[in-house]
């Protein structure tokens, strides 16, 4: 029975062709894989596979160039928007985007990010916010929630000692250079479809020269949070969405 269903004419969904067969180093259930898939699908649909240049961060997504068959440039920690600015100014016809985590974008690269967004550099920035430094062993990040336990704040984040969580997407929505600022997640099928539309809109806004855009993806880090992938999604929905409310914060693109 199943054998006559499994044939190329009945194909509904397969791994995007831009994503190669290299096994990903991400932990089981990591949101990075879903976002990689979305980026690959969108570039394929836009027909930009020969003209896309991604800029990798330092963090878990540092090896993104191993998994997606497009051009990549590695940047120093946090400096991806600065490197992408140069690439986009020299090659305005290329689809240049950066893919950064919260430690990279909101901490060490906060200056580069805010200024690149404020200059309106026609860059889409994909911001993976999992409220923790995933790659280095689960340390506290600027986006860590109050009361959240990490390896460097084992009694929970206390604002008196560690300060308050930084809501960088909110900040970006007040900058004049940005045309599209949104916050999405990739935990359910519906939210993944919405996130895909958001990334696509950011890419199109960049190619139409409308300004910079920031797509924050509220993600999980099940290894850092010490939860199973399914429990991590539940924890994210219960706790992260209260501080990081999903939805469009700014949209002046006029694109659908």
């Amino acid at each position: 029975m199943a054998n006559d269903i499994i044939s190329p004419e009945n194909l509904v969904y397969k791994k995007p062709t831009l994503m190669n067969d290299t096994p990903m180093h991400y932990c089981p259930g990591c949101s990075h894989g879903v976002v990689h898939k979305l980026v690959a699908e969108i570039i394929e649909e836009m027909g930009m596979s020969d003209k896309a240049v991604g800029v990798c961060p330092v963090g878990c997504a540092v090896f993104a160039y191993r998994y997606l068959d497009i051009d990549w440039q590695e940047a120093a920690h946090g400096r991806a928007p600065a490197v992408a600015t140069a690439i986009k100014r020299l090659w305005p016809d290329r689809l240049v985007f950066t893919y950064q985590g919260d430690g990279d974008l909101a901490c060490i690269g906060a200056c580069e990010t805010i200024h690149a967004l404020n200059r309106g550099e026609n860059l889409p920035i994909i911001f993976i916010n999992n409220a923790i430094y995933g790659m280095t062993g689960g340390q506290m990040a600027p986006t860590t929630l109050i009361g959240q336990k990490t390896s460097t704040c084992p009694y929970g984040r206390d604002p008196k000692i560690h300060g308050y969580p930084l809501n960088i997407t909110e900040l970006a929505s007040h900058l004049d250079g940005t045309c599209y600022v949104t916050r999405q997640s990739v935990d359910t099928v519906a939210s993944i479809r919405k996130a895909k539309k958001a990334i696509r809109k950011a890419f199109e806004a960049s190619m139409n020269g409308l300004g910079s855009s920031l797509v924050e993806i509220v993600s999980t880090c099940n290894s850092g949070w010490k939860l199973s992938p399914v429990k991590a999604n539940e924890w994210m929905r219960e706790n992260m969405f209260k501080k990081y409310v999903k939805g469009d914060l700014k949209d002046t693109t006029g694109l659908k």
Partner: protein
Amino acid sequence: MSKIKGAIVVNTDRCKGCQLCIVACPQDVIALAQKKVNVHGYPYVEPANADKCVGCASCAIVCPDGCITVYRKKVEE
């Protein structure tokens, strides 16, 4: 009457057994393979109730590693 029938193929070598697809599946088709691991030492999922599959592709969309290929066909009854 025609009926929609689906089928999934899991790339077990790529699967890491995160079980997000098991939660996403509305028909309870997918289950973790019992006491089996792949070449990387990860447990993996398999279509345990393959007959129930409707080919909605929910499992494949949520899969972080792109392990699942989905097929769908109209079957006359």
